[in-house]
């Protein structure tokens, strides 16, 4: 089975890169940053469907949870990204996917993750930085719209190259 292993390797590498980059970038800048892991999960889920998309989200979320300094509560990011993968996977369409649809699915996944984070903050008693949360949501939606078509094309090319 050479093809699944190739796309799988690509996806895991990009996920790892996104998780490390977001932590290291946060240490260097105080600017609001978009969620870098979400576009990878959305692109993968759009390609493979809901149940495999949710597994991909779960794996990506565990990477985020365990990447030092880690989440305040282990497993929260895993569950949030699994939900995002489920939502994005439900948006899979056969054949060529129009750009507008990809952007909509990315925005829906971003809203799912942000809502979950606000719920976690409310449950754990952490303060919420509303302006920062809003800006980050906006940046994530834009990044998803830009990055997801590129990632989907990469995966398509990898799949074709194998076959």
């Amino acid at each position, binding site marked *: 089975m050479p093809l699944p292993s190739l796309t799988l390797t690509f996806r895991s590498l990009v996920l790892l890169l996104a998780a490390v980059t977001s932590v290291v970038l946060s240490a260097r800048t105080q600017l609001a940053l978009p969620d870098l892991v979400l576009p990878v999960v959305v692109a993968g889920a759009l390609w493979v469907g809901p*149940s*495999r998309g949710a*597994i991909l989200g779960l794996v990506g979320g565990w990477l985020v949870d365990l990447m*030092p300094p*880690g989440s305040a509560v282990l497993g929260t990011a895993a*569950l949030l990204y699994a939900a995002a993968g489920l939502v994005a996977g439900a948006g899979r369409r056969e054949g060529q996917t129009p750009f507008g649809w990809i952007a909509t699915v990315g925005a829906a996944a971003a809203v799912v993750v942000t809502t979950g984070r606000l719920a976690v903050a409310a449950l754990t008693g952490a303060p919420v*930085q509303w302006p920062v949360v809003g800006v980050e949501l906006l940046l994530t939606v834009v990044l998803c719209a830009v990055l997801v078509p590129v990632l989907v094309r990469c995966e398509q090319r990898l799949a074709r190259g194998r076959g």
Partner: protein
Amino acid sequence: MRDTSRRRLLVVLLALTVVLLGVDVAGGPGAGQLRAAGGAAFGPVERFLSPGADAAGAGASEARAGVLRDQLVAQSREARELAALSGAPDLAGSTFLPARVVGVGRQGAAGPERVTLDLGARDGVRTDLSVVAAEGLVGRVVAVSPWTCDVLLVGSADLVVGVRVGAAGTLGSVGSGARGPQHRPAGQLNLTVVERGTVRTGDAVTTLGSVGGSPFPAGLRVGSVQHVDEAPGDLTPTASVRPAVDLTTLDVVGVLLAGPRTTPRTPSTATG
């Protein structure tokens, strides 16, 4: 058929995640080891990508370049921050390990709550040591892996610090601003005074100190009182506290190994 087995795998993985989440919330065993394993696996990557990595790995072969680099480093911001840390009056007499922040977790909606330092168990760091900057208290070490450690910052939901307020030394505790009746914006801490004491705007808030100086030694600056709440029904006064350290621009910090008082206290005899 493949689809059902995949769905079954998803359900099993989700159930496992929920169980681990429950264990972490309940403070059960295993969560700490899992974090340490994550730190051992990914910590070196973060250290390698940290801003000071190239300066730290200086080779002995290029002596001239090394001298130039030393001069450059001496003028750099990190050197100034380290000098400020060594010269901070609050820390006089205490021993600390200088460290740099290599990773900041901003996954939650609360801004930075945890940071990663480039020191680990191999450098002698253990959990429950306090972390300081030149201006005052930063947080407490909560997870240690061989090369890195994770620090819970002051103001995060899980950290409460016993404090003394003002010249009178009124006792109280400082925690996350979202806890308590007043929902304060992020960047402000919540101060609860244990009994009816006087707290005024501008009063300094310092650590009360823990038994054996761990996690918090006494006398470290936490912040200053910003606003005293006017709540007629309250039995104890509450106030908002502005943290002494700007937690969003952390770079060079110190992990306190031993507090300022190292000589044992001598017993005194009453003369009345």
